[in-house]
Every structure is written in structure tokens, then in C-alpha cells.
């Protein structure tokens, strides 16, 4: 990972803000949307090994 992207990944926010946002209820739309994403991902890449490989390729594309 290049440095700016790593720093972005590690970016922190004030604890109070973090806790406030974590406490927000998950909406039905988010539950449904997440379920659809997971269903697609697991169907397309049935094993964890395949999913990890996909993520490696996707990340390489992002960094190019």
C-alpha cells in the first residue's frame, strides 16, 4: 500500500463522533443492500481464497 492510502485507512476521528456514528441504527435498506452485496460476492467467489484473490486484484487496480 502506498503511504497516503495507508494513512487514509488509519485516519481516526474524535471518539465521541465515532461512538455517535456507531450508535446510529442500521436501516432496512442497508440490511437489504448488504445482503445483496454478500450474495453477489459469495456467488461469484465461493471460497475465501477466491475472495481474497479478487480483493488483491481490485486493490491493484485502484492503486494503478
Amino acid at each position, binding site marked *: 500500500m502506498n503511504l497516503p492510502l495507508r494513512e487514509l*485507512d488509519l485516519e481516526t*476521528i474524535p471518539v465521541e463522533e465515532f461512538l455517535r456514528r456507531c450508535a446510529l441504527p442500521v436501516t432496512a435498506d442497508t440490511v437489504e443492500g448488504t445482503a445483496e452485496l454478500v450474495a453477489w460476492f459469495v456467488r461469484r467467489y465461493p*471460497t475465501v481464497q477466491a475472495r481474497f484473490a479478487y480483493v488483491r486484484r481490485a*486493490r491493484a487496480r485502484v492503486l494503478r
Partner: protein
Amino acid sequence: MQADEFDEEAFVLALSNVRALLIGRRALIALGLPVLTADYDVWLHIDDIEALNTKLGPLELLPNRSPAEARQKGRYVLENGAHVDVIVARAIPTVDGVSVAFDDVWSRRQTVAYTANTGLVIPSIDDLILTKRFGARKRDIVDIEYLQALKARLA
């Protein structure tokens, strides 16, 4: 060794022979959540450092600290091609003060199939959410929302 030469399957096999939990975004991906990450995050039992390092020796994944130093600091890094952050603390507090103990998380672990023959051990969804509260990182808010949605869907 280049990243694309990293023998991930041998790495996962080595993890399966010690008390090690894959945490972080890799665990989310294992559960089927399509998020991006470059690193591996492992929470290892403090007594299994030597055993894991020995098993990873052939992969040339080398520790940046001695086991004694790692125990003192609570973490170390394995690196060569891949980057593996290894936590060895017995317990870690969340940002709101909840102590999360390795032994408790280990007792509630789940195993997902890395391949048809190799299992990968990760925390329960509730415990993964707790590990995402170790730091107030912006991206963890998204991950926690994903995990809560997944948990709601499975309920």
C-alpha cells in the same frame, strides 16, 4: 519475495495450527463483504508466538520483534511481500472502555472454509464488531455498519 508470490494458503494453514484469529477487513471479506484491504491482521494467543513464527519461517515472513519484545509491546509485524500485523495482547480495550479478552473471543470463534480443505478461524460477528472499536478509525464505522447489517440479515 513479491506480494504476488506470497503463499497465502500456506499462511492460512500455519494460522490453523495455532490459536490465531484473523481479524480486520480480511475477516469481513471471509464473511462475504466486498471491502478492500492490503494487510492481514491477526490476533494471536500470547503463548503461541514462537509456534507461529516457526511455522511461517519457510514462507520467509519474518518478525520485526523478538517474542519477548512482542509480548512487552503487545504486537509485532510479520513482513516480506505480505504485511501481517499481529496482536498478542491478552486483552484490548475498546474506545469506550470495554475490555475484550483473547480467550473470550477465541471461545466464541467461527471457522470459515478458506478452501475445501483448509479452514480459517475468525471471531463471531459480535466480537468482530468489538475489535472494530479498538480505535476510532473512520473506516471502521463503515465496517461496523456492514457487520450489523449482516448480523441482522442472519438473525
